[in-house]
C-alpha cells in the first residue's frame, strides 16, 4: 500500500534517512523502531511532505507522492498524529474534528460555494461516533487546550481518523502515557485494524510495539538494519547491538 524506494534525506552532511526501502501492506500494523536520532520521525515527515526528499521515491497505492504537499497527502488518504501534540487549542473538541472532516468534504463535493461556505448544522452530529471511540463524548464542547494530556493524545488520534484516511501514521502516540493508557491505546489500535485501517506506528514503548504490530522494521543511522515479525526482531543480534551498544553475547 505504501512503498518507500531507496528514500534519502540529508540535512547538510547528516544523512538522517539513507537509502531506506520499506513496504507497508494493506490492513497491517507496521512498526518502525530505532534508537533516538535513527531517522524514524524524519521518515514520517518525508511521507507527509513536510520537507523535500533528497533522493528516492514514495508511492501510495501505486501513486507517486514523493513531492506532494501535506494537504495533498491527506487528500490521498494518509493522516498523521504528532510526537508533540498539535491541536487547535482555542477550538472546541468537536471543531477540531470538524477541521479534519472538511478535508474529506473537499474531495467529495464539487461546488465552490458549498466547499467554502456550507454551514456547521450537520457537522457536529457526524463527529459523535469518533468522540465515543476516543472516550471524549462528554467533552465535545470543551476547548481542546483545556483537556488533560491523555485526552489531548486521544483527540489527536480522533482528529486524524476524522479525515477518514486509508492509512494512519502515528508518531510516538504512547509517549508520556502510563501503563493503563498504553493498554487502552493498544485496544484502540486493535479495533482500528479490525476496521481495516493500515497503520504505520513509530514508537519507543516496546510493550505497545511488540504487542500490536504485524511486522517491524528497525532503523539505525537512517538505514534499515532489520525487518520481520515481532518475535524475529526481539531475537535479532543486530537489533540488540543497536539498542544496547553490545553484540548481545553477554546476556546469553
Amino acid at each position, binding site marked *: 500500500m505504501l512503498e518507500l524506494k531507496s528514500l534519502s534525506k540529508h540535512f547538510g552532511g547528516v544523512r538522517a534517512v539513507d537509502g531506506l526501502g520499506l513496504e507497508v501492506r494493506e490492513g497491517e500494523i507496521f512498526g518502525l523502531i530505532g534508537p533516538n536520532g535513527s531517522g524514524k520521525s524524519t521518515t514520517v515527515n518525508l511521507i507527509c511532505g513536510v520537507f523535500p526528499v533528497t533522493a528516492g521515491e514514495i508511492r501510495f497505492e501505486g501513486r507517486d507522492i514523493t513531492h506532494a504537499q501535506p494537504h495533498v497527502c491527506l487528500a490521498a488518504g494518509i493522516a498523521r498524529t504528532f510526537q508533540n501534540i*498539535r*491541536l*487547535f487549542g482555542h477550538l472546541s473538541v468537536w471543531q477540531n474534528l470538524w*477541521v479534519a472532516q472538511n478535508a474529506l468534504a473537499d474531495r467529495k463535493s464539487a461546488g465552490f460555494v458549498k466547499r*467554502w*461556505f*456550507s454551514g*456547521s448544522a450537520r457537522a457536529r452530529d457526524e463527529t459523535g461516533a469518533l468522540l465515543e471511540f476516543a472516550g471524549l463524548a462528554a467533552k465535545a464542547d470543551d476547548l481542546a487546550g483545556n483537556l488533560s494530556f491523555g485526552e489531548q493524545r486521544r483527540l489527536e488520534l480522533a*482528529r486524524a481518523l476524522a479525515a477518514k484516511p486509508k492509512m494512519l501514521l502515528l508518531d510516538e502516540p504512547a509517549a508520556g502515557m502510563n501503563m493503563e493508557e498504553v493498554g487502552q491505546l493498544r485496544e484502540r489500535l486493535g479495533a482500528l485494524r479490525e476496521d481495516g485501517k493500515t497503520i504505520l506506528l513509530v514508537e519507543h514503548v516496546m510493550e505497545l510495539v511488540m504487542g500490536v504490530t504485524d511486522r517491524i522494521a528497525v532503523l539505525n543511522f537512517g538505514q534499515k538494519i532489520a525487518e520481520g515479525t515481532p518475535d524475529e526482531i526481539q531475537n535479532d543480534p543486530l537489533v540488540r547491538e543497536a539498542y544496547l551498544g553490545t553484540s548481545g553475547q553477554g546476556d546469553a
Partner: protein
Amino acid sequence: MVDFIQNCFDGVMLGSSYALLAIGFTLIFGVMRRLNLSYGPSIMLGAFVGTLIFLEFRAGSLAIAAATVLGAVLVGIYVERLCFWAIRRGAAVASMVSSFAIWMQLEELVTVVFPDRTYPFPPLMEAEPIDFGPFFFKVENLVMFACAAALTVALHLTLYRTRFGLRLRAVSENPDAARYMGINIAAVTFFAFALASAIGGVAGYLIVSADAQITPLFGLWATFKGLIAMMLGGMGSIPGAILGGLLLGVVEAQSIWYLGTEYRDLCAYALLFLFLVFRPGGLFGHALAERERLALRRV
C-alpha cells in the same frame, strides 16, 4: 454633558469605519502574522476606480460602491501575490517592507493617472440631520454605522458558522497543524486577503462618500487609522479591532469638540502612545499573547 454625549454618538459612528479598517488589518495579521502596510493604499486605489466611473459615466451610488469594493479587492490580491505569497518563505519583515514599496507604487500610479490630486466623490445621499431630543444625527453617519454593524455580523457568521471560517480560524491558530489536516494554507490566505480587502473597500466607500472628496493621501490616512485602531484593540483580535476603532473614534470626536480640529490626530497618537506604554497588548491582546505562548511551548 449633552455635548459630551453627542460627541460620543458622533465618535461611535466615525469609529465604526475605523473598526472596519482595523478588522481588515487584523484578519490579515491573524492569518499571516504579517503586517500589510499597503492595506490603506489598496483601498485608496479602489476609491479612485469609483471616482473614475463617476467622472466618466456619471454612475449611480451603487455602481460606484461596487467599483470601489471590486477595485480594492483586485489591488488587495495584487499585493497578496507580490508581497506575501511570492515571499512566503522569507522573513515577516520582508513582506512588511515590500508592502511599503507597493504603497509608494500605488500612490505614484494614482498621481500619474489623476494629476489634479483632489477629486470630487459623490455623497451617498443628501439629507437633513435627524433631531432626537437634544441630539442630532447626520444621516450619512447613521448609514455608515448601520453598514459597519451589518458587515460585522456577516463576518462573525462567516467565521463561526462556515467551513471557510473554521479553516481561517484553524490556520490562524496553528498553521502547521492546519496544513497536516488537509487545509490548503495558500488558498485560505488568498481568500482572507480578498475578504479583508472587500471589508476595507466598503469602509473606504463610506468614508470617502461622507467626505465627498478623495486625494491620494487617503491611503496613508486609512493605513494609520486602521493600524492605530488595531493596536488599541490588540493585534489579531476581531472584537479588539471593533472596540479599538470605536474608542479611537470617540477620542477623536471629543478632542475635535473640546480642543479643536488640529488636535484630532495629536490626541489619536497620544492615545496610541499611552496604550503602547501601559498596555502594549491592547484591549484584547492577552488572548493572542497567550496563543503565542502556547505555540512556543509546543515547539
